[in-house]
């Protein structure tokens, strides 16, 4: 897939790729069913969801206070706090830390925030080798691919493609057996873990009350990365903070259920400070980078609600658009419904201008969201904010349509014109419409309006 072609071209390529669509369709439905099943086991999932949304909104409304509290408490436990206003500063901070500690081999826990700032490339450029240790991210890295989902990065690959990538890149014997493949990667990573000297992670939640960071993983690699190297650098978006430990429980109950359908991920790590005297393991140094990168501006905008997101990926799995085109077509770090809101807000270059429009507004994302973010509503408001950027043709058509609908004589005229515009190709169908109906008929036939509209039948007493 090429990176710099337009959105429509990427979509057309994705839609034509049946292997991709089959893989994504299968995996996303599986996750939707798993989420629904595991939430149904909770006695009060609806109330929990409401509570989670309220906690997120409360926290965002007092974000500076909670961040300060978090920083104070984390410092008291021996962590060093850095603040990064943008991606470049965050990367530079990690580079300097690597230099300071003389790190040469970094191991990483899966983290979308580090994807957002493009950390791997920056570290590699200064001679620090970076190894992704999440199984999916590992495959992405060795195959020089990009993650296409925020939780399951290789959702776009089927089993054969994964097996091919591993045997080709690691030079091992070809097997499609998941257990066999996992063993191969495990063996490979053991050696890396033995030699690594820097651990890099994201943060799922940061508890203000205690200065604790929480990392949720499934493969055990998270604990290896955060305990084995002598330095641990954690990078978190400033919105990740929760007020108290007891609030964290609400999110832990919802996160894995929404994400993978598990009651709880296999490993939930609560990290408060570096290794203390007498601790059997843990890093000697813990650095936490608080990343803004556009978030403060979003917080001050009418779109602040999007910062409630806990990155569970449920909206991606539920979204029929994501299911039809996969994650790469979005060409954005965060794909899917939440990405279509977040990306144009975080990056105002216009690169993501197509995303808010590319939704049928079906609302499946909102139903799936564990913190009840009104994603369709946010998309509509983004569309409104982007209007000036839309084509002259679209704005004119919209205005024309608006005028037509504002009185019933013009409306009736419009109905008659529509019939004229649609060439009858037999049986009351149009197969090739004129512009802009050509866009409709590019994907399906168009029913011609019957001879008489309802209002004509009504007037003629035929109702």
């Amino acid at each position, binding site marked *: 897939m090429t990176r710099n072609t337009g959105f*429509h071209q990427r979509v057309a390529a994705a839609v034509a790729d049946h292997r991709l669509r089959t893989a994504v369709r299968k995996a996303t439905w599986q996750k939707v069913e798993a989420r629904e099943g595991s939430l149904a086991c909770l006695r009060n999932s609806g109330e929990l969801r409401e509570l989670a949304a309220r906690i997120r909104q409360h926290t965002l409304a007092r974000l500076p206070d909670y961040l300060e509290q978090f920083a104070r408490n984390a410092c008291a436990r021996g962590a060093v706090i850095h603040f990064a206003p943008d991606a470049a500063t965050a990367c530079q901070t990690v580079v300097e830390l690597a230099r300071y500690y003389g790190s040469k081999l970094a191991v990483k826990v899966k983290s979308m925030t580090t994807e957002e700032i493009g950390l791997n490339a920056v570290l590699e450029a200064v001679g620090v080798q970076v190894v992704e240790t999440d199984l999916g991210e590992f495959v992405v890295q060795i195959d020089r691919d990009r993650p296409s989902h925020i939780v399951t990065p290789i959702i776009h690959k089927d089993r054969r493609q994964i097996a091919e990538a591993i045997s080709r890149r690691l030079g091992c014997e070809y097997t499609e057996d998941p257990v066999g493949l996992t063993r191969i990667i495990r063996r490979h990573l053991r050696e890396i873990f033995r030699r690594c000297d820097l651990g890099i992670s994201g943060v799922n939640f940061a508890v203000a009350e205690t200065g604790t960071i929480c990392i949720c993983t499934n493969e055990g690699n998270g604990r290896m990365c955060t305990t084995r190297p002598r330095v641990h650098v954690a990078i978190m978006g400033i919105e990740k903070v929760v007020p108290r430990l007891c609030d964290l429980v609400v999110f832990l109950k919802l996160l894995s259920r929404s994400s993978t359908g598990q009651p709880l991920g296999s490993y939930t790590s609560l990290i408060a400070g570096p290794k203390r005297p007498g601790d059997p393991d843990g890093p000697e140094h813990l650095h936490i980078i608080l990343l803004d990168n556009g978030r403060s501006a979003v917080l001050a905008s009418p779109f602040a609600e999007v910062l409630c997101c806990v990155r569970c990926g449920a909206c991606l799995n539920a979204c029929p658009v994501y299911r039809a085109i996969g994650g790469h077509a979005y060409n954005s770090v965060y794909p899917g419904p939440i990405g279509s809101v977040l990306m144009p807000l975080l990056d105002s270059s216009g690169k993501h201008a197509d995303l808010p429009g590319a939704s*049928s507004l079906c609302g*499946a994302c909102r139903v799936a969201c564990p913190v009840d973010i009104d994603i369709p509503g946010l998309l*509509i408001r983004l569309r409104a904010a982007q209007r000036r950027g839309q084509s002259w043709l*679209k704005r004119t058509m919209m205005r024309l349509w608006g005028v037509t609908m*504002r009185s019933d004589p013009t409306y009736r005229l419009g109905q008659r014109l529509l019939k004229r515009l649609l060439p009858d190709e037999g049986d009351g169908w149009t197969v090739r419409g004129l512009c802009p109906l050509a866009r409709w008929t590019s994907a399906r036939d168009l029913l011609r309006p019957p001879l008489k509209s309802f209002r004509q039948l009504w007037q003629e007493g035929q*109702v």
Partner: protein
Amino acid sequence: MKVALFATCLTDTFFPRVGQAVVRLLRRCGCTVEFPAAQTCCGQPAFNSGFLEHAAALARRMIRVFERYETIVSPSASCVSMVRHHFPELLAAEPRWCRQAQRLADRTYEFATFAIGRLGLDPAACLKFTEPVTFHYPCHARGIYGAADLQRWLAANPSNEVRIPQHPDCCCGFGGIFAVDYPEISGAMLEDKLDVLVATGARLVICNEAGCALQMLGGARRRSLPLRFKHLAECLAEGLGVLEPVA
């Protein structure tokens, strides 16, 4: 009871038979039905595209057209949800209009929930299918009726064979202007949806939304699939003998 029909622009233009079915059913239930001829569109296409002032102008127009009526019924849950949920929000900055929008919202009903829930129309008595049926649940019916309700109505008569499609509430890809702005995506979603419907083995699909019907009918014809689509109102009216059955 006096009821005003809000036919919606798509039903008026493309599916007049659905309008006929609704009117005849309401009459059969003892209602006097009026059709305010000044009605046009609820403004949803403008609203969804972010052209909020066009949408607000049409919302005000809708309020004026229907202000005389105590009960307004529409065959489209999507347009009803526009009136119910988005009109008050759209006119929030104008307190007088906003109050009126709320009043309209409170008096506007989706046809099936109104006829079955309010007027006591019994789907078990008047829904008889001579072949297996399946159904599509329109996304914008959320908050008005659920996929389970639709399924329950269709299966109320035990002799009906209802084939439940996989994920009946999955979007068909219509989405209004989205369908012409992003035909590749909309078309792919449509393809997935039709595959699921075909897999049920049923040929008759109950679809209560003119937009979804336009999309799925067009897709089925393009692919020469043997699917037919009907609004629940048409089936109910046929069952009660107030509408000539069609195949």
